């Protein structure tokens, strides 16, 4: 749940990258870490095991102050993918405001993707979150691999699944920023609807996204570079 602190004029937003083991959640965060200006982000914290796979989660804070003086703190988390870390996934998912579901596009991974999707719905429910109203974006990662589902097959998926689907090759940084952008767009709309970001806190969608994405290296993305600092990029 987003945390508002009226005294200090702070808003803390939590974003979680969820998905099966080795689908590329940590790769997404590492790529964002490279692309986001250190002025608006903290260190990327990775709690990993000896075999270099995520043990608990990764976390990266992104923060900015709006013109109206509100401090917005965005925390990006990943969950551990391995099956055994079920309870950690549930804990990390607690109070999330938006979820990026990172899926491996390969046909061979379809069953485990589906299993983790259902697992996520279960864990959201355990945390009292409703997936129908929660901002969710699906990232179809590893589009460059041979066995990846083709564009037509994704079209089928789009008709079945409600959340937006963003293709990506996270290891090359492709689609990573687009995923975050699409997610934060939904996230803003959801928070604005619930808590009146614009009416009560004087934060417009343009400013919310612009404050972040004007500090992101947009080269090679499908997002336009903002014309003026603080302005929002558009598609």
């Amino acid at each position, binding site marked *: 749940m987003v*945390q508002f602190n009226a005294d200090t004029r702070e808003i803390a937003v939590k974003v979680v990258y969820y998905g099966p083991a080795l689908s590329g959640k940590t790769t997404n965060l590492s790529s964002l870490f490279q692309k986001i200006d250190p002025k608006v982000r*903290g*260190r990327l*914290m990775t*709690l990993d095991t000896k075999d270099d796979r995520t*043990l*608990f*989660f990764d*976390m990266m*804070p992104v*923060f*900015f*102050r709006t013109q109206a003086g509100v*401090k917005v*703190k965005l*925390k990006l988390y990943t969950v551990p993918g391995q099956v055994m*870390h*079920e*309870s*950690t996934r*549930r*804990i*990390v998912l*607690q*109070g999330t405001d938006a979820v990026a579901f990172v899926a491996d596009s390969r046909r061979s991974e379809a069953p485990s993707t589906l299993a983790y999707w259902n697992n996520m719905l279960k864990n959201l429910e*355990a*945390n*009292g979150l409703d997936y129908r109203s929660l901002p969710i974006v699906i990232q179809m990662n590893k589009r460059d691999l041979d066995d990846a589902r083709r564009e037509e097959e994704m079209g089928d998926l789009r008709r079945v699944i409600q959340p937006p689907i963003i293709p990506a090759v996270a290891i090359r940084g492709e689609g990573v920023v687009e995923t975050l952008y699409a997610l934060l767009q939904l996230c803003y709309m959801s928070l604005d609807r619930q808590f009146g970001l614009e009416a009560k806190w004087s934060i417009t969608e343009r400013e919310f996204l612009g404050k972040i994405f004007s500090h992101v290296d947009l080269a090679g993305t499908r997002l336009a570079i903002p014309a003026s600092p603080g302005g929002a990029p558009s598609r």
Partner: protein
Amino acid sequence: MSLPASFLQQHLPLVDLLDLRSFSEVCQSFAELYRVGLKVFDDNGNKLVDVKVGNADFCGYIWTKPSGREQCIATVGRVKSDHLPEEPAPRTFECFSGCRYVAQPILYEGDVMGRVVFGPFVPEDLHELPVTLRRISTDFDATLAGSYQQKIRRVGVPTAEKILRHFMDLVDVMVFTGHKNLIAAKLHIEAVTESYRELADKNRQLEESYAKLKELDRLKSNFLATMSHELRTPLTSVIGYSEMMLEGLGGPLTSEQREYLGIIMEKGENLLQLITSILDISKIEAGRVRLVLSEVDAAQVMRDAVATVLPLARKKGLKVSCEPGPLPRFHADRDKVRQCLVNLCSNAVKFTPAGGSITVTAEKLPDERVAMRVTDTGIGITDEHVNRVFEVFYQVDGSSTREYGGAGLGLAIVKSFVEAHGGEVSVTSTPGSGSTFSVVLPIRPPPTPAVTPTGPIPVVRR
């Protein structure tokens, strides 16, 4: 349902992120290296670290003057609490004594966690004690104060700011490392707690369904026992009256009537036997089997059992032989041993085609045990079934159109009775050429348990 709030959702104060003892040591050695005092405050103004270097005499002397003390407190208050812009840059504070402090906020993940204060130090451009200091008291001793001030490090403000920036980098790494360790430890505990909660929840559900199943099983056994009893009572009358009529107590009978009555009696007795078996099994499952031990003559029991099945065997054209051999008497429940042998022999008769033979043998085993075997030349049992024939209700041919009748209770009863004696049953078989069932009993059964040790028998339905 909702999980307990994770610490990930909480605001962590600086003191939780740093290991205060080792952090103090770092501050200490840093302050000694640069010979300048160092203070660290959290975001509520609480002092976490305070290292004084060189200024004790100077500040101590100022404190002896009331006005000096007052102004000192005011200066320290400003250094500690004045608002600092939220940016990684030092700010200089001037002390009325001519000394300087530089302070910088500790920023972490966009939050102000506290501040570091570096000082007091004497700026390089200060050549004499300022008026603001000399005026604190009429008896102010400038020479003494000047000599005390010599002990404080003289350094340029830009250099002091550079040193502070260097220290802030160090603090940043320490806070990050501390935060990471804290998260790893806390999350580990939370994950274990959550897994435990989940397992405890599952265990509770399993226990509930286990208790429910046990209760259902008990009800089933009770039902079987009651029904068997209720079925037996009228059946005894059916058999009894048929017998009376056959004996002519109701008047003379035609040969057809005799034949019909014979069939009624025979089928009645079959039914009675079946019901008795069910009653036995329900007793076994309820753990109510009691052994009545006595000296048993194996040869006698074997002959009894063979005699019971002999008429049926002859009718089917089977050869039955009983070869007891020399056997010691042994302690057992005679009726139950007899029933075991009867059940095995009946099975042999049932599954052996005309012209076959059945042999009942016995021998003494070396370790104070006796073995009794029933061997037939029947249809045999295939490997897939051989391990399951002793299960309750198990039928090798479970179809409704099967060739051989029965309730699938005979062998289960044998197994339970034999195990109640502390013995064991086994079977070897070659499909198509025959089977040998063995019952091995100790010559003296163990004193307890006198009830069946196996508990409820697994029920298999096909």
